[in-house]
């Protein structure tokens, strides 16, 4: 998603002279073009994320709209108090981009995984979260962030099970994607909801494992706070199936699944498939980690079969 993010944000920065781009010394082979064209509106703040967020807040207090970029854990946990106090409490238009949501950074190890970024940030005042489901979802999220007068965060990820399966519909405001064509009215079945690139697990199952398209509805969420009053297709699906399997490449605690369960949507059964480390954890590729915590298309197939 990084390429798509840079392309989209380049367009925002070209159109809005009050926008600027700050990186925490990352962006090799990605940000060179921005760096050479933006002049002082491009700022490498060095390896100092706390200062970087404070600087972004200070710049925003003068009327600028900074985009702040780093690897997801460094753009979030390292500087969460700066995000809270300096940016969120002041409702400043600082747009934070965290590259490498979930297990994206794989073999780089646990310091580079981002399994609680959404949990940490969703509790902060005025913060809006964006977690695109696929590369072709990023530009819409960036455009929404550029409209906001307050803070936002985008989680840029690569799914170990990524497909290029196209969405059949995307809500223009919530950015929620529908990936099934089952006509209403439906009876029974299951609603599978993926948060961000977590939905790729389900799309892989649809494309490669023969997930039952007659009985399974698949949605991808991409924005928090949720606005289910607008996501009428999702509400209709859950109202008919009464069964939800929620998939996210994030810890259960504080994740989007918990928020979904608490959102007032009514269902009879709700199951979360999520990321976790296991005792005696070993390290490997993103796919290795997904397998380790049973966050796989095969596990989804089993869950769908077991849930019916």
């Amino acid at each position, binding site marked *: 998603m990084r390429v798509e993010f840079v392309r989209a944000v380049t367009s925002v920065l070209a159109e809005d002279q009050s926008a600027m781009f700050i990186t925490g010394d990352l962006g090799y082979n990605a940000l060179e073009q921005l760096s050479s064209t933006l002049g002082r509106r491009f700022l490498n703040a060095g390896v100092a994320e706390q200062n970087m967020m404070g600087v972004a807040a200070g710049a925003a*207090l003068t009327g600028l709209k900074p985009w702040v970029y780093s690897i997801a854990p460094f753009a979030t946990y390292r500087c969460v108090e700066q995000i809270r106090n300096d940016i969120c409490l002041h*409702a400043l238009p600082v747009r934070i981009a965290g590259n490498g949501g979930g297990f994206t950074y794989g073999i780089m190890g646990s310091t580079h995984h981002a399994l609680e970024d959404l949990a940490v940030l969703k509790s902060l005042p005025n913060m809006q979260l964006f977690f695109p489901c696929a590369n072709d979802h990023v530009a819409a999220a960036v455009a929404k962030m550029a409209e906001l007068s307050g803070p936002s965060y985008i989680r840029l990820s690569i799914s170990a099970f990524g497909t290029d399966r196209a969405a059949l519909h995307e809500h223009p405001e919530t950015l929620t994607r529908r990936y099934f064509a089952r006509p209403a009215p439906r009876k029974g079945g299951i609603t599978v909801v993926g948060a961000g690139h977590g939905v790729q697990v389900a799309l892989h199952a649809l494309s490669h494992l023969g997930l039952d398209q007659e009985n399974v509805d698949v949605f991808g969420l991409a924005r928090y706070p949720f606005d289910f009053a607008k996501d009428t297709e999702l509400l209709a699906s859950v109202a008919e199936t009464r069964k939800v399997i929620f998939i996210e490449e994030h810890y259960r605690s504080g994740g989007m699944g918990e928020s979904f369960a608490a959102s007032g949507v009514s269902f009879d059964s709700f199951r979360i498939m999520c990321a976790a480390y296991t005792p005696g954890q070993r390290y490997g590729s993103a796919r290795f980690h997904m397998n380790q915590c049973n966050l796989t298309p095969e596990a989804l197939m089993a869950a769908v079969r077991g849930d019916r």
Partner: protein
Amino acid sequence: MMQKSLPDLVSDAVAIRRKFLKMHYEAKAGHLGTGLSDIDILAYIYGKWMRPADRFILSKGHGASSLYATLHHFGLLPDEDFATYYKDGTLLPAHPAAKALASIPAATGSLGHGMPIAAGMSYAHKHIHRSDARVACLVSDGECDEGTIWEAALFAAHHRLDNLTVIIDANGLQGFGRTEEVMNLEPLPQKWEAFGFRVSEIDGHDFAQIETAFQAQGDERPHCIVARTVKGKGVSFMENRLEWHYLPLSEAQYQQALDNIGGAEKSKDGGGR
């Protein structure tokens, strides 16, 4: 921009201290020592240094009440807001709140936050807006324990933010001990110089020295004023006493403090007897 004479500023500082003591006495609020150590610096900044486009960031957020008193003294904080200090429903809590007062740009109170904000404002003004706005930022010496102060110092020097003045309120006392015992910062001026700042070291209660430091011709470096101050300055029983970071004033102590500060009843907000 007010153009106060130095004798006027001395009188202003007395009036601000009286106002400050009254606030704390009535509110039964602590943080007296830290406010008394920075009031002369605040009086200079608001009485003489600041122009309309300039901004001041109180990185040592626990000095909020001295800032409120200073703003009110110079007519920058409305009476009706000022009267609510420390009370339920106020916009003036013990540390500055976000988006609460037009005259305070940023909430502070968690130490080490204000200076990065000030550095970001300075960068934006100098390199993007290309304005001549200046930024002053008041940091406590204990606050220099925070890594973000030094992250921001590197940043400010690297980007040649000569529109930034950082003032260290070096009163030598921090939360639970003397700075030299808790986490020795000295030699503080040399540290800031090594980080790329132009450094002035002054008596932070001497207006002539404060003015000389603020008015000194600079170069491309950001400026750091190491202001040697006395925590509790002006009140004999508070000076250099750790406990006055925390304690409120009894009535007898309040009267004694006013006697120490001196000055006349200048306004309805001055300390009354």
